[in-house]
């Protein structure tokens, strides 16, 4: 009977995930999944013969308060970091479930498959925990975002992996509890060392992959405590996280292995031609307003600079002003704009931009030749024509928004500094490009007021 009730939870997760995949049903999907989770918790509390009610209640209260506080407080721009923290905590919870099993059971008397799944829970859960927190630190600026590499790094990591295997075998064969703790400790260390050589701009891929890991850790914990609900929930997330990860790397035209092991961003700048001496056309707010004021079609291309400047509301303000003047305005969203796929969409949605105005890469790109003015807001690599024209460029082959084909391109940027890939951008030096050096938010506000006085 209990198994049937858990099955209802699992069905709620599947239906919820499915509905999360379409804009109209997404919110209800999330709620259905949350209800499934609530049901699973209640079923567990009622049927599992809980004895230590104090411990359980304290854990639930502390976790619920912290989780709710963080969820309500977090800024939309900091969403990727928040997901990283939640994900890390979910991972460590699975490891702790397995650790409790080690403490409680006679490790010599349990079946081999339980030993293996306990070790897997501890391993994957611990890596997820520290890996996610390093990713959080990199995005938050607490840990240097650049790839941290040192000589012999691969050797050190390989030794840790060998050590892990050794301790795992020892723990399993001897039944020695300390073997499990050593596996846990080394896994925590491996999580840190595996993520520090990856550049800050690739953290979303890492978080997405670790999200998949936290699902696998949960599934492994499900094997330990023989719970199908856990196995189903974990497998769903493991698969979903993997697909999202692959889609993200494809959008950057890179392989997952390249993201994880290449230390991308360390050598990019050396291969590129230095163009910083070339002249650029600087624009004032009035120049931008004149170009925009007489345009029939405008495309706004937001990038991470928009998120940093919290300029999403100012961007909508500009779009509204232009629409009142009779122009059609769309937003072109590159798949890796911002810090996670869809991050830009969330920010623009926060500013009340209707999602019909948001175009993805395939929809937006054919329109650039017919677009009068493109406004690039703090985006760089995703509009860099080198990715299309220069086979020597580190980002060559990455699908880009071909904004250089539009009538006029206004690039709002704080300086000429290159993007995360460390590559100069020929777009900035083009004839039809106006460089507007300013913080995205200030630039937009000044342009809107200049437009109003046209």
């Amino acid at each position, binding site marked *: 009977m209990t198994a049937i009730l858990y099955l209802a939870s699992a069905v709620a997760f599947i239906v919820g995930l499915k509905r999360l995949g379409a804009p109209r049903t997404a919110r209800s999907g999330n709620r259905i999944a949350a209800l499934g989770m609530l049901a699973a918790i209640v079923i567990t509390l009622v049927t599992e013969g809980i004895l230590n009610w104090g411990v*359980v209640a304290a854990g639930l209260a502390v976790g619920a308060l912290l*989780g709710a506080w963080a969820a309500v407080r977090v800024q939309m721009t900091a969403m990727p970091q928040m997901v990283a923290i939640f994900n890390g905590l979910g991972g460590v919870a699975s490891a702790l479930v397995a650790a409790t099993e080690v403490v409680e059971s006679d490790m010599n008397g349990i079946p081999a498959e339980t030993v293996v799944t306990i070790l897997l829970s501890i391993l994957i859960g611990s890596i997820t925990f520290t890996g996610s927190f390093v990713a959080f630190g990199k995005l938050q600026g607490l840990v240097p975002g650049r790839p941290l590499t040192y000589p012999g790094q691969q050797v050190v990591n390989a030794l840790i992996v060998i050590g892990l295997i050794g301790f795992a075998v020892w723990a399993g064969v001897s039944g020695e509890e300390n073997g499990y703790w050593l596996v846990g400790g080394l896994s925590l260390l491996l999580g840190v060392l595996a993520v520090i050589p990856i550049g800050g701009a690739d953290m979303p891929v890492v978080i997405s992959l670790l999200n998949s890991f936290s699902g696998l850790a949960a599934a492994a914990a499900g094997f330990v405590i023989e719970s199908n609900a856990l196995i189903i929930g974990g497998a769903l997330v493991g698969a979903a996280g993997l697909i999202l990860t692959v889609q993200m790397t494809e959008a950057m035209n890179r392989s997952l292995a390249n993201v994880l092991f290449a230390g991308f961003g360390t050598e990019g700048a050396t291969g590129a031609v230095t163009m910083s001496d070339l002249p650029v056309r600087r624009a004032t707010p009035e120049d931008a307003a004149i170009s925009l004021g007489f345009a029939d079609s405008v495309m706004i291309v937001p990038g991470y600079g928009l998120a940093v400047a919290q300029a999403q509301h100012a961007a909508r303000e500009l779009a509204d002003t232009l629409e009142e003047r009779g122009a059609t305005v769309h937003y072109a969203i590159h798949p890796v704009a911002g810090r996670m796929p869809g991050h830009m969409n969330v920010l623009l949605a926060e500013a009340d931009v209707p999602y019909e105005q948001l175009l993805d890469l395939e929809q937006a790109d054919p329109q650039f030749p017919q677009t009068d003015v493109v406004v690039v807001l703090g985006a760089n690599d995703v509009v860099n024509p080198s990715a299309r024209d220069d086979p020597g460029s580190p980002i060559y082959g990455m699908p880009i928004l071909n904004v250089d084909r539009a009538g006029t391109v206004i690039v709002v940027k704080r300086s000429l500094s290159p993007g995360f890939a460390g590559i100069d951008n020929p777009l900035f030096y083009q004839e039809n490009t106006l460089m507007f050096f300013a913080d995205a938010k200030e630039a937009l506000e000044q342009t809107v007021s200049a437009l109003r006085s046209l």
Partner: protein
Amino acid sequence: MTTLVVGITVFVLAAFVGFEVISKVPPTLHTPLMSGANAISGITIIGALTAAGIGAAPLAQILGFLAVATATVNVVGGFLVTDRMLEMFKSRGDRERRRA
């Protein structure tokens, strides 16, 4: 069938369901989807509740408490933050209705 074989069967089938359900998602929804999926991975909370609830050794209870607390942050925070994100996705129609 042993419990292990049943478990593996369930795992493989659920993974296929996960691939099928996710593969048709527009990029717009990637961030909320990742966040929502992450909240679902907090299902490990049911293992945590059992571990904390029936552990006899003091160390088991401490580990169990930590497991429940961390899993609950994942679940409660994850679903709430996803809802906050999705609340903002509105079509033009919704937007005009709300202004009226």
